[in-house]
């Protein structure tokens, strides 16, 4: 049974609490982008993806997800734990010595749910395309999902991958771009204006659709279901997910300041107060 919208929204609040508490505990990490993609990852793992019980690296017979912008590891770890890949209590080890929850995700320590290391930007789409082509070779009719930052598209390897995927008709992939318009040094327009990302993907012959309310669970599910219906038709699918960095915490929104900065004690308390009702779920 898939969770209903209320349950997904409750889980979203719990994941936000996890993110805030994780980065606060170690006074480091990336809350802004994590909060912006919380609804997306909750919807993906709890509603959209066809997943098997447990975890094996090859992931044959299930949909797979690749996180390319690895710095939003807090949201990834929280959603993986809350989806049963590893104990929720392990979130308390985030960024600590000897933890499987490294600052950026890795397969190195055997954390279930993670299939590639990411952190050095721009590499995830190529890996996701490779996994998609492996699925085709294996006659596995499942989908590869990937997530990328918008600033991350400034890395050139993405455009090699984008060119390749359409030329080779890799049509079992849905690559989502987190379009929050912000990166470390400011807005993406200020740092390196990329013009129309939609026009660029379309020029590279991708199927492109936009989710305007990228922090609304129902809008995400509707948009991604639409995206799914466009797979298998000869073109790779790109979703432009319009999100708000720092979503759900008023003082973290509408700024790039919280890209890689942890809240202090008072800020954590204020942020948690804004994310109180988890529908009976508990903090780690």
């Amino acid at each position, binding site marked *: 049974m898939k969770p209903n919208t209320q349950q997904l929204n409750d889980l979203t609040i719990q994941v936000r609490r996890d993110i805030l508490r994780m980065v606060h505990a170690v006074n480091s990490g990336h809350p802004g982008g994590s909060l912006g993609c919380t609804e997306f990852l909750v919807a993906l793992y709890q509603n959209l993806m066809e997943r098997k019980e447990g975890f094996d*690296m*090859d*992931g*044959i017979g299930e949909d*797979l997800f*690749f996180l390319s912008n690895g710095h939003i590891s807090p949201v990834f770890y929280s959603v993986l734990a809350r989806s049963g890949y590893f104990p929720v209590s392990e979130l308390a080890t985030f960024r600590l010595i000897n933890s499987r929850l490294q600052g950026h995700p*890795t*397969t*190195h320590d055997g954390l279930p749910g993670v*299939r*590639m*290391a*990411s*952190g*050095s930007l721009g*590499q*995830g*789409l*190529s*890996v*996701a*395309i*490779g*996994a*998609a*082509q*492996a*699925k085709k*070779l*294996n006659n*596995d009719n499942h989908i590869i999902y990937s997530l990328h930052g918008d600033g991350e598209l400034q890395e*050139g*390897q993405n455009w*090699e*991958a984008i*060119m*390749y995927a359409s*030329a*080779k008709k890799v049509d079992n992939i849905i690559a989502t771009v987190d379009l929050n318009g912000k990166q470390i040094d400011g807005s993406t327009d200020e740092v390196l204006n990329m013009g129309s990302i939609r026009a660029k993907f379309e020029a590279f012959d991708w199927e492109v659709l936009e989710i305007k309310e990228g922090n609304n669970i129902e809008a995400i599910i509707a948009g991604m279901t639409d995206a799914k219906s466009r797979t298998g038709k000869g073109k790779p699918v790109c979703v432009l997910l319009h999100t708000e960095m720092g979503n759900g915490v008023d003082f973290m929104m509408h700024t790039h300041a919280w890209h890689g900065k942890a809240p202090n004690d008072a800020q954590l308390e204020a942020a948690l107060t804004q994310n109180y009702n988890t529908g009976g779920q508990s903090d780690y």
Partner: protein
Amino acid sequence: MKKYTNTGSKDTRSGFGAGMTELGQKNENVVALCADLIGSLKFDDFKKNHPERFFQIGIAEANMIGIAAGLTIGGKIPFTGTFANFSTGRVYDQIRQSVAYSEKNVKICASHAGLTLGEDGATHQILEDIGLMKMLPGMTVINTCDYNQTKAATLALADHHGPAYLRFGRPVVPNFMPADEPFVIGKAILLNEGTDVTIVATGHLVWEALIAAEALEAKGISAEVINIHTIKPLDEEAILKSLAKTKCIVTAEEHNILGGLGESVSRVLALHHPAPQEFVAVNDSFGESGTPEQLMEKYKLNNQAIVEAVERVIKRK
């Protein structure tokens, strides 16, 4: 002791191509990726026989490495092929994060390594690749000496789980290793027994070491020649066993003196058996255009250079 003779010169890259052709038939999980160099890497047969398992990536090596990493997820065994320069330096961070750190079973196969690439010059003649690759945790590094050994190494890599770098060359060189010689990753091959000096050679320098050993014999110097095809993990036992007898060593490689086989051997000596060592390697410089023979002579990477290094090292005993 067996005498090694040239059974007919061939290029090492054709050995790779022959290995891929055989793997295509033997192992359905083997896939090949190429960045616009099918002919140079001798992928023609694999592509013809298994078009569904051959991926033409175009001139986009970073993407190729990432796609190879992704293909392992689902049980494929990807062999990537391009020139050594574009296989390593150009894509170092992709290999580091997506392959080595992610522990993916990708075989990075690199032709046209070193000076013997010849006329194309220094942009293409990478002399730093062994160093780059051996520094990556978990990476196996292999540099083969002839056609037969390159083919055998290619086959062996498909059965070895883990990231690996296979380095070979462009020119036609003597083929002298027996076709049925077992290829064991990490296990050196003793080619010539001797008592006065140990010559540890890799790649195209192995044949030169055998020629040098003959010239040294005529001068009354007994040289032991070891073929080190695997630079990482290094067969320390074979090196130390020989050194216990000869008390001095010469390393020979088509690579920068910094970061190559020679330094790996030095480390073994420093830890276990300090002894005189001389290096036949490129003295921290780039290459240039010229014929392979001219370049190997100018940069002192031939049998005469090995003989001179042996004479120097013996004096230091």
